[in-house]
């Protein structure tokens, strides 16, 4: 469980986080929704002690993240937005092995762990590829593997869908769906439509939490979303205007529309 209490943070003079309070439960998929510059990335970097709060605390499984960053970094794996920041080794194997190596794994154990992580994202065959020759989408998935290889209980994704084509987004979504239930997952995004798979969503803007609730509760307030510069996809708006729940995925959308039609034709 993660508990953020009255978290304040500034870069120099400008205050970026202005008193954040949040509780993220074990095993849930938690969405952090907010426009560009809202402070999402800054908040995420506090979750494993990469940034230290100016005021307030971040408690992960009972440990203060800023004081026990060593233990907390084993529990919380962060996938950065830009995979070029995450991947600094020449080959896929080396980069995925970096974390487990630091955990003390060697030889066959290390290799096994790397393969296991690559299998989870369906990229075992990439093990000896050079990172600089990978496409952006491939790098993005490898970046996830580098974190999975450390087997953290909590996975943090910063803008996992940004700059990807449809297939790329779909693949990342599948990976997240696969990990759901097994891990606590935190997703930061400015794209409303990709947070429908969350259990709960927090709307953040200008360093403050504006609203927390289920996707239905948060996404149904289209006016509020627009006020915070968030783009509401027409389909979601359509569902809401018909008085339907925001569907988690296409299957659910089909079912919901089917029900709606059969009810209204009677």
């Amino acid at each position: 469980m993660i508990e953020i209490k009255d978290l304040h943070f500034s870069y120099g003079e400008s205050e970026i986080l202005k008193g954040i309070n949040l509780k993220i439960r074990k095993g849930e998929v938690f969405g952090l929704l907010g426009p560009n510059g809202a402070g999402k990335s800054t908040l995420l970097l506090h979750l494993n002690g990469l940034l230290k709060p100016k005021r307030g605390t971040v408690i992960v499984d009972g440990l203060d993240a800023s004081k026990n960053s060593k233990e907390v970094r084993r529990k919380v794996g962060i996938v950065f937005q830009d995979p070029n920041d995450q991947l600094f080794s020449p080959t896929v194997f080396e980069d995925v092995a970096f974390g487990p190596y630091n955990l003390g794994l060697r030889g066959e154990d290390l290799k096994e762990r790397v393969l296991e992580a690559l299998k989870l994202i369906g990229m075992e065959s990439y093990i000896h590829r050079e990172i600089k020759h990978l496409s952006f989408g491939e790098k993005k998935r490898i970046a996830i593997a580098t974190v999975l290889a450390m087997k953290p209980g909590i996975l943090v994704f910063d803008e996992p869908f940004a700059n990807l084509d449809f297939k790329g987004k779909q693949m990342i979504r599948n990976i997240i769906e696969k990990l759901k239930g097994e891990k606590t997952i935190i997703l930061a995004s400015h794209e409303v439509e990709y947070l429908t798979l969350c259990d709960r969503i927090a709307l953040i803007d200008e360093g403050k939490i504006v609203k927390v609730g289920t996707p239905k509760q948060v996404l149904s307030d289209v006016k509020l979303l627009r006020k915070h510069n968030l783009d509401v996809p027409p389909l979601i708006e359509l569902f809401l205007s018909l008085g339907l729940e925001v569907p988690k995925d296409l299957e659910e959308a089909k079912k919901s529309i089917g029900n709606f039609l059969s009810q209204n034709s009677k």
Partner: protein
Amino acid sequence: MYLPFLLIYALLVVTRKSLIELAYFGVVLGCLILMLKPKKSIFKHLGFLLGFEGFLFILALFNPGEVILVTPIGAITKEGIYSFFLLLGRAFLSSSVVVLVSNSLGFSKILAEMETLKFPRILVLTLAFTYRYLDLFKDEALRMKRALDSRAFGIGKLEYYKKLGALIGEIFARAYLRNEKIYMSMLSRGFGEFPKFETKKDIIPIALTMIVLLGVLL
């Protein structure tokens, strides 16, 4: 633990003053190649390195001394040839041993070794980032040069090289901006935070270090 070997080897190589001594280090490098059995692609890297460094030291050929060959750009001397090979030998041997070991072992392992040996953090990071810059540099430079070339018809040579210079500056600036994030990514994955256990005692580097030291002492 290859790191002590690398350091000692490189340090000794760059302080050698005769070609015969360098030849000895060349033999050690040859043995290392036989033992590590690197991938074929590494020889291309080494060839590139040799050519690059050869080009770098070409001016040494024209050092003052006993003239052997007169070329349009100056006289090549006996002393010049000797110092050319000395410089090239030092540079090539010391750099190729690093390339060889880091390519066959993996650069991240070398980094981890530096950590275990309690190297100053700043040194480890500088090396890591330099390494990363080099890759980015080569990559980005290539792409940007392509972009430049595809639009640079009709400008003079001088203008072209000016643009190229500006472009290189830009590449360094971009690479630099990235280093903070890369460092965070390393920290996130336990860099310098978790205990390190060296499980396998590797005999090769220890033996090699001894051989090198003995050879120099004798």
